[in-house]
């Protein structure tokens, strides 16, 4: 999947916008300084094709287009295989080229896509936006769902995993942590650690799937990468299917903040998306599960803290199997405001740094200010005072469903859906209802998702329903 192409090719010029080419290349993720020689684990270097029934084949995508289907080359077969996309879940590429981003905002679209970028202007019809793949662009406003302004100096310190390189693995039981197909799988007591040079506030987020039970400890600002210890500043989140606890020892003293919080039943189902947000300025640590705040612990002190993260399984359920994927670790400065993920309504709304919220009609963004019509009055508010904008739900152009409507997921976050026209080892191209014609480098895509509307976890749902009947 790696390409020797020069780093450009990022273009998409919908609505006549002028293109600013953003160059991106390998090894540009911020952080990631492996000071410790990690245990070498053979990495899976091939791409993965997974079907919606859960079956999967390793190999390599050689080409893909609606006329000929998806051509998959695998060493298991004598010849290349041509598949139709009707039951394909996703193709995950073994390696995606890193993208250096220092975006100012995160945009969520009505169709479920999301992007990191930079906004410039907004009126009743259009939003001016600069994206990493298309430069300066203009998109229709009804496609927008929300804009969240990122904290200053926001940067992705780690995104992956694409392999075990850079990580230190301490297996207290054989193969407690292994890398496989874009995920770390833990199946016994052991430690997975990495120094990421975390000096600012940090957010550690990941998808977590598990079997019947687990006890996962996530350390942030750890000094050691091969063991869990409690120097001043390191905080450890204990996660089980039932509850979350936080432990922290300050200046080698006794633990504090051990009061846990139960996970709501709807959150305690595999898989979950967990996020741990450590705000150095506010002295708080917050845990979110499936974008819902579970608890914020106050009076944390991260002074004299380490700069690494680690994941550890221990305790009576250390034999439980957990799968860590879509791991992203970012750091930032200033206040960290989580995205609200409020349901769409028929009004716009602004969220402010003082945690107030005002609903009205967002008129425009211009010259660093946002104009909000509120009860017949236009308010002009500096963007620096705004943390998030929610946009009223409006009919938006959408891709007609079809087997070739795919969603590309990018390293560092963000995803775009479009009607795929062609994929080869150099370029992926298609048509987006929001952005118009799209084309970017194949190597810039981490995963291509198919059958976006099809349920993909029916087995899990069935098992859960077995007991739901009992609660009637």
């Amino acid at each position, binding site marked *: 999947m790696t390409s020797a192409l020069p780093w450009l090719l990022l273009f998409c010029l919908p609505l006549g916008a002028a293109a600013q080419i953003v160059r991106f290349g390998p090894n540009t993720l911020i952080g990631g300084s492996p000071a410790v020689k990690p245990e070498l684990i053979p990495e899976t270097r091939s791409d993965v094709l997974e*079907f*919606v*029934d*859960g*079956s*999967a*084949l*390793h190999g390599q995508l050689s080409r893909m287009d609606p006329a000929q*289907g998806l051509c998959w080359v695998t*060493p*298991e*077969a*004598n*010849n290349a*295989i*041509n*598949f*139709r*996309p*009707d*039951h*394909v879940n996703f193709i995950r590429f073994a390696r995606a080229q890193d993208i250096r981003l220092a975006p100012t905002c995160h945009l969520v679209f009505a169709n479920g896509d999301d992007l990191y970028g930079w906004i410039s202007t907004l009126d009743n019809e259009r939003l001016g936006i600069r994206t990493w793949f298309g430069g300066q662009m203009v998109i229709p406003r009804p496609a927008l769902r929300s804009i969240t302004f990122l904290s200053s100096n926001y940067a992705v310190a780690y995104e992956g995993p694409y392999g075990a390189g850079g990580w230190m693995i301490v297996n207290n039981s054989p193969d407690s942590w292994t890398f*496989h197909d874009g995920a770390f799988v833990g199946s016994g007591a052991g430690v997975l650690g990495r120094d990421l040079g975390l000096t600012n506030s940090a957010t550690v987020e990941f998808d977590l799937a598990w*079997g*019947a*039970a687990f006890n996962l400890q996530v350390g942030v600002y750890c000094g050691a990468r091969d063991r869990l210890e409690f120097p001043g500043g390191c905080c450890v989140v204990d996660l089980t299917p039932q509850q979350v606890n936080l432990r922290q020892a300050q200046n080698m003293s006794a633990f504090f903040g051990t009061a846990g919080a139960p996970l709501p039943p709807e959150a305690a189902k595999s898989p979950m998306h967990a996020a741990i947000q450590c705000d150095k300025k506010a002295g708080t640590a917050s845990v979110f599960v499936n974008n819902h705040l579970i608890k914020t612990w106050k009076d944390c002190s991260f002074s004299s803290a380490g700069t690494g993260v680690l994941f550890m399984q221990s305790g*009576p*359920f250390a*034999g*439980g*199997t957990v799968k860590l994927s879509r791991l992203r670790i970012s750091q930032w400065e200033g206040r960290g405001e989580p995205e609200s993920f409020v349901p769409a309504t028929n009004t716009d709304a602004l969220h402010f740094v003082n945690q107030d919220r005002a609903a009205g009609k967002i008129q425009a963004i211009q010259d660093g200010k946002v104009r909000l019509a509120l009860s017949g009055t236009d308010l002009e508010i500096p963007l620096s005072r705004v943390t998030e904008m929610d946009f009223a739900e409006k009919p938006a152009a959408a891709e007609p469903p079809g087997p070739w409507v795919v969603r590309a997921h990018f390293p560092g976050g963000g995803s775009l859906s479009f009607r795929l026209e062609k994929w080869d080892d150099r370029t992926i191209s298609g048509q987006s209802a929001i952005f118009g014609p799209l084309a970017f480098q194949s190597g810039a895509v981490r995963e291509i998702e198919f059958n976006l509307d*099809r*349920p*993909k*976890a*029916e*087995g899990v749902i069935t*098992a859960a329903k*077995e*007991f739901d*009947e*009992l*609660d009637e």
Partner: protein
Amino acid sequence: MNWMSKSSRIALVLLAALGATAAADPAAPPATNTPGDDLCFRNGDSLYGKLLEVQPGEVIRWQHADAEAPIEFKPQNVAQIDFAPRPAAGGAIDSCKLWLANGDKLAGNLVSCDAEALVLDTWYAGKLRIPRRALQTLAFNPRTPIVFEGPTGLEGWTEGNAVKGLELDSGRWVYRNGAFYADKAASIARDVKLPDRAQVQFDLAWRGQLNLAVALYTDSLQPILLTDKENGPDFGGFYSLRFTQSAFISLTPIHKKAPLRALGDYLIVQALAQKDRMRVDLRMNKAENRVALFLDGVLVKDWRDPGGFAGEGTGVRFVNNMSGSVKMSNFRVSRWNGVIEEAAAGAADPSHDVVSLESGGKAVGAVASIANGRITFVTTGGTTILPVEQISAIEFARHQGQTPGGPAANAHATFVRGGALTFELLSWRPEGVAAASPDFGRATFDPAAFSRLQFLPSAPKAAPAP
């Protein structure tokens, strides 16, 4: 260890029987594709579809719903194929199971046996002639096997009354769609007329931790408060099989006046902590003071009670002991032929044939022949001719040196109705599976007979002789 002390506390509170199990169906594929055969590769990949053909060493031809043409895979990269259930797999009921010395197991109907070979009539491969040297154990299926099957409702079951002194929020077992559910402490029992040699099987699934007690051979349909059993209502002895905190299992003989003492140590089955369902299979033999526990088909423990068989009744009782949700289904009680597969490998007298009688006795000697429903058995006391109906099992004298399937074996197949066979696969086509073995020669099998086909790694070739 905090959980150990908690476990001890719970043990004091537990009601008499506890049992639980949960056996798990293998994870079924989501119904997004047509359920099909599962092709499993050595690298962990898998692909659903339909097996079209196997030419060992050449190609595995596979049909996939989304592929334009049959796919040709390399057999050396394939670990096994799991076959989707096929309609009408199998014909008449098999009357016996035959274990071979190499560990293989075949089901069928006994035709004959002489000094050279045993002939087994099978629905999947016709008559198989197997040399005596390859035989290990022949076990006849119980002639009146099923004693009880359910549940089909609450009728006939006795729900337990709340027990005074038990500080638990009590509830009831609820019947729904062929299963009993409990989400609070609850007891349900039935006199299922357990035979002296019995097999009790059921599926368990649970949410949260499993804390269940199963009373075996009880005469009390009401739960017994173990901590105060001496002062409670009278009851006859029984066994309490307890599943505690999902991972701990114990078997305790319970008597009205005797102190509580489990047979052996608590079993810690860590794998249970990672499950949420399993199948429990109990084999019990009063004459041998024996209770054997299988979980998901694996023998976990074979208890022998040095104090004699404790059970004085013929009932069973399920008691959910804590506020965890439990589902019990596919409950079956049957007569047991007294043979445990894992134990069959170690015969009591490997130099002679051993015949187990339906009456419970055993005879040591030599099986001269079996024909026309009669067995001719030679002992030091002379020759005895018995109807086959009076025989429950035969353990054949051992012969040395057997390689499973012979030196050319390249496949191990599992049958849909139990049993397995190692052989040299010659070809697999929809019309038949051609295979060969030193044990049965060449034979053609019905493909519907198999639930799984494992491809054995090629043995390293021996260096040529100088």
